[in-house]
């Protein structure tokens, strides 16, 4: 497009550009004009950036953790059983055999679910050779109300 303009016009416009961006007052005005005066954290809540920040209120679930739990429970095959396992070992830790008998599931299925849950840092195995119990991890314990919310939806159905 520039080549259709006469040379002196281009030179003038370049000179003006140079002047306006070397003059501190004008250039500052330009920057303010281009960037609106709000920050990103005003649009996206600050809790989105911190996984387990110390300033988080205990009663409010971590949105990021909520997303992970929802995805593991609602976005995978057998996710409902995973939610039931988490709900079962919430208060009293159990071993895989006992979980299987209480939930009326195959032992292999339970072992697989627990493996996935521990890979995602939701449950942890006790340091024991035989019949090791599984219990919830710290982050899962902190966000139990998310699990309760999901369990309520499962039970009402």
């Amino acid at each position: 497009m520039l080549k259709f303009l006469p040379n002196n016009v281009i030179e003038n416009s370049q000179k003006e550009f140079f002047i306006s961006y070397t003059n501190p007052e004008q250039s500052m005005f330009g920057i303010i004009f281009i960037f609106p005066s709000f920050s990103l954290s005003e649009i996206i809540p600050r809790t989105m950036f911190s996984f387990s920040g110390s300033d988080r209120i205990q009663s409010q679930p971590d949105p990021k953790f909520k997303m992970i739990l929802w995805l593991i429970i609602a976005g995978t095959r057998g996710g409902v059983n995973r939610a039931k396992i988490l709900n079962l070992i919430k208060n009293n830790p159990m071993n895989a055999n006992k979980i299987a008998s209480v939930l009326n599931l195959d032992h292999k299925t339970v072992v697989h679910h627990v493996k996935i849950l521990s890979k995602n840092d939701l449950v942890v195995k006790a340091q024991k050779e035989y019949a090791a119990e599984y219990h919830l991890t710290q982050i899962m314990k902190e966000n139990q109300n998310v699990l309760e919310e999901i369990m309520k939806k499962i039970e009402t159905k």
Partner: protein
Amino acid sequence: MVDFMLAAVISAFLNIGLLLVIIGTYVQNMRVIRSYYTSGLVLVASLLMLQNIVIVLFWFTLYMNDKALMMSADMLAHYLFAINVIQTIGLSVLVWITRR
């Protein structure tokens, strides 16, 4: 020479198959847990499915009938192929996560 258009359409069919698996799992979960999250997952997967159906329809109607359209479609075929193959890889990962 590789027929990019055919490869793109094969990839689109593959995507439809993968999406069927994903939607199947999501619907199974939605029947137990009825919430905005589960229905949202089904909606997103269905829209992706619609996209791939449109690609297949594009191939059937535009590409098959007209010689001139075929020429111009061929020029764009490798882009369509790249888009579809990337989507196939992405959906394969999603299926792996969903079904394990």
